[in-house]
C-alpha cells in the first residue's frame, strides 16, 4: 500500500527565473510592437504636418476636420489602383501650402484642377507603389520588386500618353513631338505600333529605280544615306560591301516596262536659262529645298544631278504619276521643250560633277548578284517602306511594339552599355544606337540626336500592356480618307492638292488653311484666277502654291466645286447690303484698332498678316465678319487678336474691308466720284 509521500511541489529556482525572464521578455516585445506601430513613418510625418498647419494661413484642412490623423486612401476600382500618397502628402490639394517644404507642398501648376486626385489618384501620372505608406516602399527611388518606381519628372509625359492617345496631346510637347517623329521617320512602316493604326509612311516606290539613279550614286546612298542628304529619313542599314554590291545589282535591274518618254528629245538645244526661269516660275522650292532652303515635302535638289539619270528625269517631270505612281508631286502642264530645258538646267546646276555628262547606261546581268541583292532586300525589310512590284508584301519586318512599356527590362540585352536596366533606357538605346546592344540588329541607325531619341522614347513608353477604362481614354480621332470622284477628283489627283491641303483632317499640312469651308471664304472668280496664277497674299511665307499651268477650264471647275461643296452655312447668310455709314465707321475702326500694324493696305502696313488691298474681291463678307468676331474659333493659334467686337462693329469693319479692291470702292465708301 503506497503512502502518499510528501513530494515537494516547488519548482527549481531556475524555472521561476525563466518564467520571470520570459514574462518580462514578452512584455518588452509587446512594448516594442507598440513602439514600432506608434513611430511608423507616416504617423511622425502627420505630426509634423499638424505643427506646420498651425503656421499656415487659411489651410483647407483646418476648415474641414479637427485634426489630420489616419491613413488616407484613394481607391480607384476602374483603374485597379489604391493610392495612399496623401497620407504624407497632406497639402497636395491645398493651394495654401504652395511652397511648403516637402512632402507637404501643394502640387505645382494647375494639374490638379484638370486631374483631381479623387478621380485620378497619383500613381497614374507619377508611378511608384501607391499602396505603401512610407518613403522607401513607395518607390520614390527604384525599389526591388516594384516594377514601376516613380518616374523622374523629365519623363513624366510618357504617362500623359497612356490616356491622351491623340497625336498632339495638350501640354505635353515632347510627347507630341515624339509621336510626330514616329510617323515622320517611318517607324510605323516596320513596326506595328498601337495608337498609330491607319497611318502610313512610304519611301518612294522602287519599280523604276534602275532607270532613275546613277549607279555610283546608289552605292553611296546605300552605304550611308546621310552622306548624300543629311536630313534623309532613311536610316543607315550598316550594310557590308558585299550587301551593297548585291543590292545595287538587284535594284538596278528594276526598270520600267514601258520605255521612257525621252526619245526624240533634242538635248543639244536645251536652253538652261529658260530652265532656270521655269524653275523659279513653277515654284519648285515650295516643296523642294536647295541648300537647305525651301520646302521639305519633296527630296532636296542640291545635288540632284549626281543622283538621277537624264532620261528618267525628263519622263518624271512629264508624267510623275506614270513613272512613280505614289509620288505626291503634281503634274504640271509643260511642253516637251520646256521639260527639256528644265531637265537640262537641273542636271547642270545641281550637281557636283559640273559637266552634267551622262555616264554610260549600265545594266546588271549578273544573276547571282541580283538574287543575292534580292535576299538582302527581303532580309532587311526594305519593302516595309519601299514598294516594289517584284517583291510580294511580307508585312512589317519589325516586332510589334504593343505593350512595349510593360515588358520586363531584364529580358532585354544592353550590350556593353553601362546603364540601369529599365524599359525607358532600353528603348532609348535601341532607338539611338540599335547596333550597340550586344546582338545583331536589323534596325537601321537613324542618326538621331539624343534629344529626339528621348522624345521618341517618351512616346513609346506610353504604350502600355493593359487597356484603361474608356472613361479615362482620349482617343486619336481617325481622319476619314478623302477621295473625291468625277472631274474634280481627277484634277485633285493630277495636281496633288492633298499633298499640301487637307479636307476633314485628311491630307497635307503644308497649308494651314483646311479647305472644308473654302467656298464660303473665297469668292468664286478670285479662286479661279488665283489657281491660274497663285499670287502672294502674304509677303513672308516660304511655301507658295506652285504655278500649275492649269487650263482655264480646270481652274473654273475647281472654283465651281468649291463654291458648291466646300461651304459653311453659318457664313453664307450674311446680309451684304452695307450702308455707306457702316463703311465709314469701318474705316474709323480700322485706324482705331491699329490693323495697319500687321496688315498691308496699298503700300503701307505690316507684314504679319495677309495684305488687304484686294479683300473686297477676295473674301466673302460672311467669312470676314465671322473671322473678325472670333478668330480663335477658326484657328486656335492665330496671331489675330480677338477684339471683342460687337456685331455692329464687326459689321462695320466687314463693310469697309469688303469695299477694298473693288472697282466701285470709292462709291461704296460713299465718297464723291473721283
Amino acid at each position, binding site marked *: *500500500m503506497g503512502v502518499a509521500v510528501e513530494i515537494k*511541489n516547488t519548482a527549481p529556482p531556475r524555472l521561476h527565473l525563466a518564467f520571470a525572464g520570459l514574462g518580462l521578455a*514578452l512584455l518588452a516585445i509587446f512594448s516594442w*510592437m507598440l513602439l514600432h*506601430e506608434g513611430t511608423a513613418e507616416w504617423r511622425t510625418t502627420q505630426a509634423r504636418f499638424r505643427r506646420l498647419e498651425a503656421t499656415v494661413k487659411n489651410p483647407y484642412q483646418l476648415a474641414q476636420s479637427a485634426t489630420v490623423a489616419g491613413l488616407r486612401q484613394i481607391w480607384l476600382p476602374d483603374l485597379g489602383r489604391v493610392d*495612399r500618397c496623401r497620407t504624407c502628402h497632406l497639402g497636395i490639394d491645398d493651394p495654401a501650402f504652395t511652397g511648403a517644404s516637402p512632402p507637404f507642398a501643394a502640387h505645382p501648376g494647375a494639374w490638379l484642377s484638370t486631374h483631381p486626385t479623387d478621380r485620378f489618384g497619383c500613381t497614374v501620372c507619377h508611378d511608384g507603389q501607391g499602396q505603401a*505608406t*512610407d518613403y522607401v516602399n513607395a518607390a520614390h527611388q527604384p525599389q526591388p*520588386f516594384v516594377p514601376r518606381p516613380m518616374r523622374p519628372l523629365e519623363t513624366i509625359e510618357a504617362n500623359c500618353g497612356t490616356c491622351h492617345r491623340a497625336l498632339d496631346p495638350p501640354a505635353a510637347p515632347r510627347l507630341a513631338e515624339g509621336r510626330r517623329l514616329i510617323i515622320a521617320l517611318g517607324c510605323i512602316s516596320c513596326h506595328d505600333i498601337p495608337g498609330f493604326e491607319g497611318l502610313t509612311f512610304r519611301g518612294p516606290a522602287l519599280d523604276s529605280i534602275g532607270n532613275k539613279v546613277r549607279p555610283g550614286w546608289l552605292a553611296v546612298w546605300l552605304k550611308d544615306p546621310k552622306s548624300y542628304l543629311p536630313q534623309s529619313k532613311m536610316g543607315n542599314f550598316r550594310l557590308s560591301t558585299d550587301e551593297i554590291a548585291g543590292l545595287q545589282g538587284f535594284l538596278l535591274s528594276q526598270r520600267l516596262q514601258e520605255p521612257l518618254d525621252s526619245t526624240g528629245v533634242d538635248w543639244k538645244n536645251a536652253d538652261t536659262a529658260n530652265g532656270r526661269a521655269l524653275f523659279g516660275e513653277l515654284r519648285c522650292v515650295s516643296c523642294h529645298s536647295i541648300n537647305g532652303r525651301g520646302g521639305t515635302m519633296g527630296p532636296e535638289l542640291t545635288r540632284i544631278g549626281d543622283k538621277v539619270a537624264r532620261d528618267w528625269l525628263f519622263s518624271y517631270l512629264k508624267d510623275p504619276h506614270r513613272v512613280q505612281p505614289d509620288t505626291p508631286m503634281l503634274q504640271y502642264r509643260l511642253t516637251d521643250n520646256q521639260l527639256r530645258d528644265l531637265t537640262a538646267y537641273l542636271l547642270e546646276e545641281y550637281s557636283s560633277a559640273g559637266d552634267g555628262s551622262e555616264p554610260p547606261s549600265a545594266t546588271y546581268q549578273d544573276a547571282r548578284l541580283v538574287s543575292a541583292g534580292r535576299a538582302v532586300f527581303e532580309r532587311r525589310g526594305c519593302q516595309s517602306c519601299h514598294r516594289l512590284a517584284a517583291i510580294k508584301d511580307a508585312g512589317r519586318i519589325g516586332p510589334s511594339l504593343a505593350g512595349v512599356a510593360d515588358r520586363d527590362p531584364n529580358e532585354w540585352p544592353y550590350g556593353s552599355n553601362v546603364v540601369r536596366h529599365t524599359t525607358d533606357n532600353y528603348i532609348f538605346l535601341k532607338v539611338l544606337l540599335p547596333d550597340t546592344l550586344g546582338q545583331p540588329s536589323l534596325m537601321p541607325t537613324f542618326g538621331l540626336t539624343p534629344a529626339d531619341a528621348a522624345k521618341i522614347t517618351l512616346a513609346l513608353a506610353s504604350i502600355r500592356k493593359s487597356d484603361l477604362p474608356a472613361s479615362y481614354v482620349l482617343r486619336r480621332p481617325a481622319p476619314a480618307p478623302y477621295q473625291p470622284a468625277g472631274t474634280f477628283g481627277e484634277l485633285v489627283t493630277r495636281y496633288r492638292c492633298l499633298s499640301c491641303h487637307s479636307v476633314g483632317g485628311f491630307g497635307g499640312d503644308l497649308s494651314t488653311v483646311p479647305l472644308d469651308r473654302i467656298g464660303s471664304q473665297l469668292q468664286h472668280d478670285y479662286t479661279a484666277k488665283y489657281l491660274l496664277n497663285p499670287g502672294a497674299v502674304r509677303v513672308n511665307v516660304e511655301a507658295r502654291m506652285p504655278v500649275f499651268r492649269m487650263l482655264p477650264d480646270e481652274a473654273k471647275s475647281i472654283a465651281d466645286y468649291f463654291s458648291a461643296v466646300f461651304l459653311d452655312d453659318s457664313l453664307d447668310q450674311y446680309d451684304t447690303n452695307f450702308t455707306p455709314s457702316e463703311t465709314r465707321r469701318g474705316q474709323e475702326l480700322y485706324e482705331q484698332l491699329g490693323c495697319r500694324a500687321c496688315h498691308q493696305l496699298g503700300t503701307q502696313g505690316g507684314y504679319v498678316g495677309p495684305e488687304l488691298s484686294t479683300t473686297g474681291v477676295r473674301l466673302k463678307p460672311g467669312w470676314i465678319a465671322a473671322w473678325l468676331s472670333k478668330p480663335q474659333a477658326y484657328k486656335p493659334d492665330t496671331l489675330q487678336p480677338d477684339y471683342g467686337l460687337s456685331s455692329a462693329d464687326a459689321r462695320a469693319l466687314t463693310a469697309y474691308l469688303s469695299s477694298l479692291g473693288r472697282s466701285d470702292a470709292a462709291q461704296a465708301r460713299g465718297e464723291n466720284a473721283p
Partner: protein
Amino acid sequence: MNQSTPGSMAAWLDGVRRSVSRVGWPVTDKDRAAAMISSLFLHIHPARVSRHVLKPTYTFALGLIAGILFLVLSVTGLALMLYYVPYPPEAYRSMKDLQFVVTFGIVLRNMHRWSAHAMVAIVFVHMCRVFWTGSYKPPREFNWVVGVLLLLLTLGLSFTGYLLPWDQLAFWAITVGTNIAAHAPVVGEQMKFLLLGGHVIGPMTLLRFYVLHCVILPLAMLLLVSLHVWRVRKDGLSGAATQASPEEEVAGVFPASTKTYGLMALSKRPRASVEARDPNDEVFAWPHLLYRELLVALAVIVALHVVSLVFMAPLEEMADPTRTPNPAKAPWYFLGLQELVHYSTLVGGVIVPAVLVLALLIIPYVDRDPKGSGRWFAPERRITNSIFTALVALFVGLTIVGTLFRGANWAWVWPWR
C-alpha cells in the same frame, strides 16, 4: 438571494465560478489530480507523471513545440483571414494592405510565415528524435504511422499556404512543386489537374489552395493530432526511467503501485507506464509538467515574436505567368527533391519520394524488435540509427545544395560570391 451582505455576494460569485471550473485553484494533492482530469483541455495529461519525464533532454519537447506552433499558426491564420482575399490580383493587394495599412499586420504575417517554416523543421526533427529513441517500436507502430501522416499534412499545409501571397515567388514555387508531382506515373497529370482546378495556375487554383489551407487540411490535422496525442497517452512515453518487464506488463501487474483511478483500472493499462514504478518518482502534472510546458510555450512565442519583428517575410512583385524567374525554386523543404529532379525526373521526383514515404510508413512493422526503445542512440540499434542518420544527412545535404548552391539555370554557384 440577499445581495446586501458582502459575504453572500462572495458566495454567489464563488458559485458562478464553480459552475464554470468545477475544481478551483488546487491546494491539496487531490485537487491537483482532480484539476487535471476534470478539465477538457488539461486532461490530455495524466494526473501524475514520472519525474524523469520532466527532463528537457527527454524529448526536447519537440512534439509540444510543434503543437504550440500549430496553435500559433491557427490563431495568426484566423486573424489574417479577415484581410486576405483569395482571388488574384486582390490576393496580392491584400498582402500589401497587411504590410502597410493593417495595425500589426506586418508582425502577424511574418509570424505566420516563420512559424510555418519552423513547424516543418520541428516536425522533421521530432520525427528524427522519435526514430533515434526507437519510440516507434511496438506498441507505438500506429502512432508512428499517424506521425508520418502528420508530417505529410504539415508539408501540405505549408505548400498550400505558399501560394496564397500570389507573388512571383509563390506562383513559380507552386509551378515547380505541382510539376514535380505531375511526374507520378498514371495519376500524376490527373492529380495536377485536380490540384490546379485546371491546366494552369489561376483563380481556381488559388481558391482550392485556400480552402485546403484554411479548412480541409487543418481539420485533418486536428483530427490526426488528437489521435496522435491520444495514442501517446495510451501507449505511454517510451523513455520512462525504469520499465516493467514484458511479462509484468502483460499481466497488468504493477508491483510498486496499487493505485487505481476508477474506470481507468478497467481499461487496458499502458505498457511502459507513464506512471513511475516508484511512487517517490512521481510528481503531479499540476504544476510541474504544466509549468514547464508553459515556459516552453512562452519561449516559443517570445522567439517567434523576435524573429517576426526582425526578419521580413518575403513579398516579391505580383505573379506574372509570362515571366519566369531564373532560377524558379520550390519551397525550401522541397528543394532536396528539386535537386534530385535535376538529376532524374522520374527517379528524383517520383520514385525516391515515394520510396522514402513508404519506407517511413512501414519501418515500425519491419523493425519490431523492442530492444533499445526509449533510449537515445541505444547501442543495440546502432545499425538502424546509422542508416537513418545517413539518409537524413543526405536529404538535408541535398536541401542545402538546392537552397544555397544552385543559381540561374540550376547551375552550381558558390553562395558567398
